[in-house]
Every structure is written in C-alpha cells, then in structure tokens.
C-alpha cells in the first residue's frame, strides 16, 4: 500500500566530499542514492535499513534503499535524499514561470519493494 510523503532533496557533507572524489564513485552513488526516513515511518511500514523502496510521482520513479535518519532530524511524513541524479528524476520540468522547478518539498508516493522486484524504474544506490 503506497503512502504519500513530502521529499526534501538537499546537500550533505558526504555528498560534497564524494562529489569531489567523482560522480562515478561508489561513495557518491551511495550517498545520492539512499533515502533517509523517519524511524517511526520505517517501523510502521516494516522497513529496516537497506530495504528498498519505490518512490514516484507524475514525473518519475526510482527504487532506492532507505535508512533511518539520525535522531529526530526528520519529522514523520518527511523524506530526505542527497541532491543528485536520483532526486532530480522526481522533479518536473515546469518552473511556473520562475526558472526553478519544484526541487524541494514536493509530494511523492512511497511503497516497500521486495528484493525480487524487476524495477523498470531508475534503480539507484549501492
């Protein structure tokens, strides 16, 4: 059963350091391809660190591993992912006349996926 969340792509320290090491390094791909969730949301959905989830909206769909956010960093209902290729696949092309697409705080659906999922979606993560 899919649930609606609000996703916030953003910068992290590790995203910045691994970016310099190279966009094709495993570190960068792991950092920008892992979804952070509120621990209570993960528990409710029966998810553990490393489990894969499908995240999608009208613009795109990705399958990524998830992990619990540090402490109380993320409120329930909010997702975070390091800004990069994966997060941008969920971004629409319309900028509402501003030049800036909705790049933070937009709605997505999320559902857990099994290990055997044949993901036609963009698959990210390590």
């Amino acid at each position, binding site marked *: 059963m899919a649930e609606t969340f609000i996703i916030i792509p953003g910068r992290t320290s590790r995203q910045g350091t691994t970016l310099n090491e190279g*966009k094709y390094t495993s570190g960068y791909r792991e950092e920008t391809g892992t979804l952070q969730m509120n621990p209570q949301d993960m528990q409710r959905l029966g998810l553990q660190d490393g489990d894969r989830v499908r995240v999608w909206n009208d613009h795109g769909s990705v399958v990524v591993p998830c992990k619990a956010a540090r402490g109380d*960093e993320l409120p329930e209902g909010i997702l*975070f992912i390091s800004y990069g290729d994966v997060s941008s696949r969920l971004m629409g092309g319309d900028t*509402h006349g*501003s030049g800036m697409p909705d790049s933070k705080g937009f709605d997505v659906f999320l559902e857990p996926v099994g290990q055997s999922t044949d993901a036609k979606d963009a698959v990210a993560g390590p």
Partner: protein
Amino acid sequence: MATPAVPSGDSSAGTPTETAERPDVKVVSNATCTFCGCVCDDMELTVEGNRIVKARNACVLGKAWFFNHHIEDRPEATIEGRPASYEEAIERAAEILCNAVYPVTYGLSDTTCEAQRVALAITDWIGGTVDTTTSVCHGPSGIAFQEVGEVTCSLGEIKNRADFLVFWGGNPAESHPRHFTRYSLMPKGEFVPNGRKDRTAVLIDVRKTKSAKAVDIFLQVKPRSDFELAWAMRALVRGIEPDPSVERKTGVSLEVLRDVVERMKQARFGVILFGMGLTMTRGKHLNSEAVLALARDLNRHTRWTAKPMRGHGNVTGADNVVSWTTGYPFGVNLGRGYPRFNPGEFTTADLLARGEADAALIIASDPMSNFSQPAREHLKRIPVIVLDPKETETSRIATVAFTTATYGINTGGTVYRMDDVPIPLRPAFDSPYRSDYEILKAIEWRVREKQLAASAG
C-alpha cells in the same frame, strides 16, 4: 588561431615557496578555495608535483576539493566521444554555435569572472540566451531583489557587528562548514568581542539538521509554510497580531514567535542568512520576498540585513558579470540585439524542458545529472559543447567536450564571494589542460571569423 594568455591572479601574497628540506615541495599561501560560496581565501596549500597534499585551514569540503582535483589522464578534447585535436574541437564548437537558431549558454558558476565575460560575449555575438546555475539556485531570490530590494551587508560586517543571526532554510554546518567559524557565528569581532557569547542564533528549518546543535533557538517549521511564517513575523514586527491559524499552518506557536521577534527587535545588528529551503520550495521568489521584506521591516526598529547563502564557488560572480553586462542577473536573451530578462522563458530548465533550445554551450555544470527528465531528454537530442575538468553525464553526451584546468587550483582569475566581494585566485600548480577562459576565447575568435567571412561573402 588565437590562443590568448590566461589572466593571472594577484600572486603578490601567494607566491609559491619551496621549503629548504624539500625543494620539490612548494607552499602556496593565501590560496582561495572555490568549492562553495564562502570562497575562503586563507588556505595554505602544500603541493607535491601536480597534487595538493595538505590544505591547512580548509574545511572537510575544501579538503575534498583540493585533494581530488589532480591531473587526470583524459583527452584534451573529444568530438562525439572520440578524442580530437584542440583545433578540430574549436572549429566544431564554433560551427555548432554559428549554425544554431536558439542556442543557450549555461553553467558558469564554477569558473572565473574572466571566463564568464567571454561566454557572455560569445552569446551576444550569436544572439543566444545566457543563463547560469543561479536560475536553479537563488534565481528566485534574484527575482525577489527586483521586487522588494535587498538590505545587504558584507560577511565582514556580520563578523564584526552581528549580534543576532537567523539561519533560514539552510544547513550551513554541512553545506558551508566554515561559515559559522569564519564569518558568522563564532568569530570575535569589533563590536562582538566575545564572539559566540555575544550572539544569539536562530535556525528555522523543516529538518532538525546538524546546524540545529549550533544555535540557541530552533524553530521547526512545517514543510511549505516558510512564507506564512515570515509573513506572521512581519506582522508582529509591525505590531499586528497574526491570525491564530498561522500556528496550525507553520507548526510554530505564536508565543514562541512573539518572543523571537521581540528579541530580533532588540538586536543591535541582525542578519537573516537564507538558503535554498526557501527558493527551491513552492512559493520560491515569494518566499525570498517575504524574508527580504521582513529584514526591511525590522529596520524600523534596529539594523537588519538579509543575505542568500550561495552554493557554488563563483555563482555570485556569475550574477555580477551577467548583471553588469546585460542589466539582469540570469535568464537573459540577446537574440534581438538587446537584453531581455524573463525567468520561465529564458531560463535553461524551461528552454530545455520545452524543447526550444537547438544548441547548448555548457561551462562547468552538469545539467544531465540534475535537470528534470524532459530537459535531459532534449539535451541529448541537440548539439552540446561542454567545458569541464571532470567527466560528467553531460560531458558524456556532448558533441564537443573539452577537458579543462580547474579554476583556483590550476588557473588564476577572479571570483566573487557570496557577499559580492571579489577575491583573486592563487593557483597551486599548472595543468596540461587549457583554462575555460582560453578555450572560450578561442571559440569566440573562431565564431567571429566565421561571422565576418559570411557577412563579407
């Protein structure tokens, strides 16, 4: 073909010096880090051959920047993925630009002001559109400046005067690690002699990030309600009681908000430092406008300013160069022989997503990794010229790709710090690759030769 000299930075204070013990090692003092908008210019770099092995004063991001920009073994240029000579690549690039009807020049935030000027000149010669990564960064704040103005200050003023700091929609602890220690939160200044003890700091954000630990007051705002929060604060500053519904909307109690606003009114010098939590979220320029207007309103009581936290090393330079050249900061079309500014029409995210641009000149940027899917699809369909020191998704799809020297590490020039202060670069070691400036100058030269030949013929 012309191969103009690269402009050198002011090297008077940063002349590399060899050490007595290790004559093969040189030290570059007062070097400048160009990774983020802080543009810290107090680096001491130890260089062995073509590697930086030590970067004193650099933060974790700066160290990653300096230690990973060594010389890579890649072709100087490629055409359609195959290695090509520099001259062939310049010729093909000029041909693409001269044949295009609606070309766009994009990127520019990770190169020098000198290179930015040449990119603008090329765009002007071919009647194209010039846009920078500002449009998907603080472009909305640029729009907001035009609407409500900007009460501004330098980072030096913040360091020496600010006794109240509001960080809004950003996480400087991770995105600008030295901002706290060098410019805003921690340093001792002329009118804040005790540094951190003399300052009150507030963080307003949806996430309780690492930055929350550094501040005195954390206001956790609900997603997509920054505008409402800023508007409620404006009301309180003016002595108007906001509608109680603002508590439900923003998740911040009016009691807490009243207390924070009262403290802000009591400050001697306050500054709001706002990030892309405002500009990238629904509302965009209206969010920035609300915060800028709040800073303006606070000046009825005391001195307040507001500054955007800029990301890339010379994105502020891009704004300055495009503004002083065309009168507008980004998203400028030169197709009619005079500048026209229209975000949404002449911004790259739109030009590509709508399938309008028929060629692209991309300098030091990777839109194939961070633009929307329709924009990426279109970029794959049109001829693209890319200048980048690293291999990227965009250089991989480029018709013509140049490997470039890294600005600040291999080349001199000028960049602007996030507070619009120009800073000279002091390069650490030479690169076998040419600078953006040199390549763009050669493209410009060849474009003009072709245009003049066509008009004469």
